[in-house]
């Protein structure tokens, strides 16, 4: 058996698999950001808070209404998406005429308000949320013990990513959307309700964040700051992939998860910064990002 820098291959395989699982979260979250930026030109800083809301709504559904994980997986993104709908309709839509910066500031402020509200009502320590019975336990793969739930996270995120990519790049609806971002006036002249389409797109991006939140609830601490910790990394992923590139967000999401996983084996202290180091290098060599198009 070969060893790499003193690390046996079983360990390496295990860590790669874990990296892929973390990458799943990065991919789903950065995908939502990329959809919103690519089609609406909004830098959605409340994405982390919306991810947190996804997890919290799942917990609330269980705690107050007795609705379990599987229904929450559908209901929670819908509920969080609906809040996105309201946010777009009543606040963001007024900012399209202005610079990107205003959208960023607005969503950042909204994120702080949402986090503050949840902190006020639910405290900071977090809420317990169990893994659904169907997915508890795990498989012994020989080189590692893989919890069933983690395997499910990878499957669910791949489905969400591919589905989104397909919808935007390959369907008629996606084509309308892309056209509407290129030239809203012309598309509107064809009788398509452009503002409504944009509103729904934002809600969809937000719902993706909520979906990632539900996926995270059973394995990470469900607390009001859970999104704030993650969002910075996810933004770095989007920048590396190329702002607004759907495929870029997906590929770099998984890729950076893998790289981070490897760093955790070879130099754990560096695992928190490795993504930012890569971001700096990419920005120096290819400022538009790996999959981005230069304007």
């Amino acid at each position, binding site marked *: 058996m070969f060893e790499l820098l003193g690390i046996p291959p079983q360990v390496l395989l295990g860590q790669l698999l*874990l990296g892929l699982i*973390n990458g799943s979260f990065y991919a789903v979250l950065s995908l939502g950001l990329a959809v919103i930026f690519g089609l609406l030109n909004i830098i959605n800083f409340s994405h982390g808070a919306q991810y947190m809301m996804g997890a919290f709504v799942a917990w609330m559904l269980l705690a107050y209404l007795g609705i379990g994980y599987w229904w929450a997986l559908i209901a929670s993104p819908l509920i969080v998406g609906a809040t996105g709908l309201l946010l777009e309709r009543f606040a963001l839509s007024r900012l399209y005429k202005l610079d990107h910066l205003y959208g960023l500031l607005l969503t950042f402020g909204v994120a702080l308000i949402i986090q503050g509200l949840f902190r006020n009502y639910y*405290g900071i*320590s977090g809420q317990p949320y169990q893994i659904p019975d169907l997915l508890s336990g795990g498989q012994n793969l020989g080189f590692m013990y893989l919890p069933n739930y983690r395997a499910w996270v990878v499957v669910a995120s791949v489905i969400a990513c591919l589905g989104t990519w397909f919808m935007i790049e390959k369907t008629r609806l996606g084509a309308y959307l892309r056209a509407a971002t290129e030239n809203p006036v012309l598309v509107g002249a064809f009788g398509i309700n452009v503002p409504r389409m944009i509103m729904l797109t934002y809600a969809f991006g937000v719902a993706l964040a909520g979906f990632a939140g539900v996926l995270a609830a059973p394995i990470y*601490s469900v607390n009001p700051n859970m999104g704030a910790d993650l969002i910075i990394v996810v933004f770095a992923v989007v920048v590396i992939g190329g702002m607004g590139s759907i495929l870029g967000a997906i590929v770099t999401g998984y890729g950076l998860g893998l790289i981070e996983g490897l760093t955790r084996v070879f130099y754990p202290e560096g695992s928190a910064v490795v993504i930012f180091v890569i971001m700096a290098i990419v920005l120096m060599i290819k400022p538009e990002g790996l999959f981005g198009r230069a304007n």
Partner: protein
Amino acid sequence: MMKTILMGSAALAAMTGGALAQDTIEVTLGVLNDRSGVYADLSGEGSVVAARMAVEDFNAEEKGLDVEILSADHQNKPDIGANIARQWYDQEGVDAILDVPTSSVALAVAEISSQMGGILIDSGAGTTELTRGQCQPTTIHWTYDTAALATGTGKAITEAGGDKWFFLTADYAFGHSLEDETSKVVQENGGEVVGTVRHPFPATDFSSFLLQAQGSGANVIGLANAGGDTVNAIKQASEFGITQGGQSLAALLMFVTDVHALGTDVAQGLQLTEAFYWDQNDGTREWSERFEERHGAKPTMVHAGVYSGTMQYLRAVEAVGSTDALEVAAKMKEMPFDDPLFGKGYVRGDGRVIHDMYLFEVKSPDQTQGEWDLYDQKAVISGEEAFLPMIEECDFTKTAG
């Protein structure tokens, strides 16, 4: 004519005011802690509630103390904490600062308190430096420190056969010192440390670190971290079947609010050391019930420490008859206490408060009878055994003369 009347009434007012001031001592307490971040539940507003309860239970008003309580958020940042402390002492007339979790902030506030004629009665911070390397005559360290946690949990587990340790350590000063202290205790008791991994702070995903711990051949995984990091690590350890695989977890710093957040089905069987638990005896239960009525959650040991510390401070102010920091601190060290929350104890010359610590085990879901029924008491560790011995230079009862 008008002028003389005015002056006369002003003089009268000054005289009566002066007469009143002789009877009442004005005391201003500042609760400085984390009100929005990771430690907001274990300290935060609850510590303000605890301080208020102490003032009421002490009957401060009847005893001629006019006590005001301020509070502020230090956001776990030493510079912010230091600024608030300076402003409080300088402009708000604060006499004592309470709580101050986060070791780095506590050390900064300890120094400022000593320079500016105030007292720090710390409950939330863990570093032993407060009463050792950076000791001050006006620092009182009430509730716990990293050495006491290490002795409590480290010794109990090593003696029970958990002799091969792997540490999961938060990569900053607190985590390192907790790891060091615990390693010492493990080795002194015949155990060995087989590995360590330092994780970034804060971290969300612990799976790779846990996998490394799993393959290390250790039978105990020591979590030298706190708050959300500990909660996440334990949640994921249960997911990855660490405990089912025969390895046990040792949470070196964990509060009852963390266990509450995890739930007993994930946290069951964990051993941990605390200075206080609400359900220990009639005294703790009675106080905790009153606390819960006001705050909506059971108190942590940090809240309890703020209450007891404030009590002892007010007793000393009453005895001295002023709020002079050095005199009051010396008085606090002279008077042993016996209170419903910490039992019998005393403030040592270096400001370290010596009281019993307790080893607890988290109950399993079928043992608990309620949301906050979380611990079984396993052992009592006497204060003398739990805390480090005093170092000579920090014995201010001698140097103060």
